[in-house]
C-alpha cells in the first residue's frame, strides 16, 4: 500500500454569486505516492495543484473520493481526529508563514508544544534542527530580521520538528531568487536522503522539478494529465501541457520565430538532434559528421542534467556536399531522434 493514496478525488467550490456554476478545482484525480519519493506536481496557477496538496493533510476536504495517508482515511476524519495525523505531515509555504511574534527558536518550538513534546526535549531537538538547516547562530533572531532563504530554512526546520513522514511543499522556492532557490532545493534533497522523508512538492517551475523530483504529475484544469519519472517526462512528453512545461527549460528545436533569424545567419540544412539516451553522446554523432566531411555548426538548443542523465535538443546547421549531407543525416537518424527543421 502506498504511503499516500488519492482515489477518484474531486473538489468543487461554489461559484461566486448565487447562479454561478460550481468551480471544479479537482476532477477525478488519482495519485499514489510511495514512501521515500519526491513527487513534483506541476501546473499553471488554477490547475488545482494547491487544492490537491491541501487534501493530503486535510486542510481542505474532497467533495468526493478518498485520501488515505499511511493507512488512515484523512478525508473522513474529524478535525479533532486529524490533530495527531497532522504531526506526521510537515508543511512549508511559498510565503514561509512564520509566526512574527516568536523568534526562530519559538517558531520551531511551536509544533513541539502542539504535539505535547516534553519541554526537556525541546533544547536538543531545536538545536539539532537549527544545525541541520544551517541557522545555529540565528536561534534568537526574529523572523523579520531574516532573508527569504533563511525564513524558508526556518520553515523547513519547523516542519521537521515533530519527525514527520511526509513533507508538503507549497511552491517553496517561488518567492526566492535563483541562488537561494538552489540552496533550499539542496536542503530539501537532504531532508529526503538523510531522513527518508517523502516530499510532495508543487511548483510551476520545471527547474525545481528537474533538480529535486523523482517523479512528476502534470496537472491541467483539475486533472492529472500525465505522470511518470522525471527523465521520461522530459525526454518523451506525451501531453501538450507537459511539452509546454518541458520547453520552458529545454526547447525542442527552434520555435518558428527563431528559425527565420537563424536562416539569415546560417547556411545549409538544419537538423535537431534529441538526446534522450545515454548510449549515444553528442560526440558519437559529431564523429559521424566529421567522417563524411560534413561541416556543422551548433546553432540552437542545449543539454540538461535530469536525475543524473543527460537530456536535450541540439540544432545543427550542416553544410558541405549535398549527397554527403544526405548520407550523414541518414546515419545520424539511426543513432538518435533527428528532426529536420523546415
Amino acid at each position: 500500500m502506498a504511503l499516500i493514496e488519492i482515489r477518484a478525488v474531486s473538489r468543487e467550490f461554489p461559484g461566486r454569486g448565487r447562479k454561478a456554476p460550481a468551480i471544479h478545482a479537482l476532477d477525478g484525480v488519482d495519485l499514489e505516492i510511495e514512501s521515500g519519493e519526491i513527487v513534483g506536481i506541476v501546473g499553471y496557477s488554477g490547475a488545482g495543484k494547491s487544492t490537491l496538496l491541501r487534501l493530503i493533510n486535510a486542510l481542505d476536504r474532497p467533495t468526493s473520493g478518498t485520501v488515505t495517508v499511511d493507512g488512515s482515511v484523512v478525508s473522513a476524519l474529524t478535525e479533532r481526529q486529524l490533530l495527531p495525523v497532522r504531526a506526521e505531515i510537515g508543511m512549508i509555504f511559498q510565503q514561509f508563514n512564520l509566526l512574527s511574534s516568536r523568534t526562530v527558536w519559538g517558531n520551531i518550538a511551536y509544533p513541539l508544544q502542539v504535539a505535547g513534546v516534553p519541554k526537556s526535549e525541546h533544547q536538543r531537538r531545536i538545536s539539532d534542527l537549527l544545525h541541520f538547516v544551517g541557522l545555529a547562530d540565528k536561534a534568537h533572531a526574529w523572523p523579520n530580521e531574516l532573508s527569504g532563504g533563511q525564513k524558508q530554512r526556518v520553515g523547513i526546520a519547523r516542519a521537521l520538528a515533530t519527525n514527520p513522514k511526509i513533507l508538503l511543499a507549497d511552491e517553496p522556492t517561488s518567492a526566492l531568487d535563483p541562488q537561494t532557490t538552489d540552496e533550499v532545493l539542496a536542503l530539501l534533497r537532504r531532508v529526503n536522503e538523510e531522513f527518508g522523508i517523502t516530499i510532495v512538492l508543487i511548483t510551476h517551475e520545471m527547474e525545481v522539478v528537474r533538480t529535486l523530483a523523482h517523479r512528476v504529475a502534470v496537472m491541467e484544469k483539475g486533472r492529472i494529465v500525465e505522470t511518470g519519472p522525471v527523465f521520461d517526462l522530459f525526454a518523451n512528453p506525451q501531453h501538450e501541457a507537459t511539452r509546454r512545461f518541458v520547453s520552458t527549460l529545454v526547447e525542442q528545436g527552434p520555435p518558428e520565430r527563431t528559425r527565420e533569424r537563424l536562416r539569415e545567419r546560417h547556411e545549409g540544412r538544419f537538423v535537431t538532434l534529441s538526446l534522450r539516451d545515454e548510449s549515444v553522446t553528442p560526440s558519437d554523432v559529431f564523429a559521424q559528421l566529421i567522417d563524411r566531411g560534413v561541416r556543422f555548426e551548433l546553432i540552437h538548443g542545449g543539454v540538461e542534467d535530469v536525475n543524473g542523465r543527460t537530456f536535450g535538443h541540439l540544432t545543427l546547421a550542416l553544410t558541405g556536399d549535398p549527397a554527403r549531407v544526405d548520407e550523414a543525416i541518414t546515419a545520424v537518424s539511426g543513432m538518435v531522434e533527428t528532426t529536420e527543421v523546415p
Partner: protein
Amino acid sequence: MDRLSELQDFYWQATFETLYMVLGALLLGGVCGLLLGLLLYVTRTGGIKSNRVVSVLSNVVVNTFRPIPFIILIAAAQPLARAVTGTGIGNKPAIFVMAIAATFGIARIVEQNLLTVDPGVLQAARAMGASRTRIIFTVLLPEALGPLILGYTFAVVALVDMSAVAGVVGGGGLGNFAIVYGYRQFDTVVTWAAVLMIIVIVQVTQFCGNALARKVLRR
C-alpha cells in the same frame, strides 16, 4: 487662581475618580470587548469557525448599541445599572454603563485588528495540528498584539471622554468638576484646570500605548 487652590482637594479627588472609572470600565469592557470581538472574527464567513446565524446576530447587537450617544445611553441604561450594581447614582453605575459602551467599541477594534493577521500563518498552525482554541490564544492574539495595544489605547482615550459625562448619574470625575465648579460658576480657570488634567491623562496614556506597541512590534 485663589479659588483653584481652595478647590485643590476636590481637584485631586476628581482626577482620582476619573482614573478609577476609566480603569474599572477598561477592565470590564476590555475583557467583554475582547470576547465579543473574537466572536465577530471567528464567525465571519470564511472565519476559523464561521457561523452565519451567530455572525449576523452579534453584528446586529454591536451595530445597535454602538451608535447610541453616550449621554443618552447612560440615562437610558440607568435602571439596568441600578439592577446590576444596586444603585443608580454614583461612580459604580457610571462604570457599568461605560463598560457596556466600551465592550461594543472594543469588539469592533479587536475584530479589525485580528483581520490584519495573515491567514497563511493561521493555516500553518492548523497544518501543525493546533486546535482552534490553541490557534486563537497562541497564534492569533500574539500576532495581533501590537495593533491590539494601539486599539486599546484608543479605547482608553474614548473612556476618558465618556467619564466626563458621568456627572449625569451623580458620578464624579474631572468632567463633573469642570461643570460644577467651573462652568456653572463662570470660573474659566477652574474649567481649564480640569481640561488640562484630561489632556495630561490622554497624553500619558497615548505615550505609554505607543511605547508598548513599539516594543511588541520591535520597530
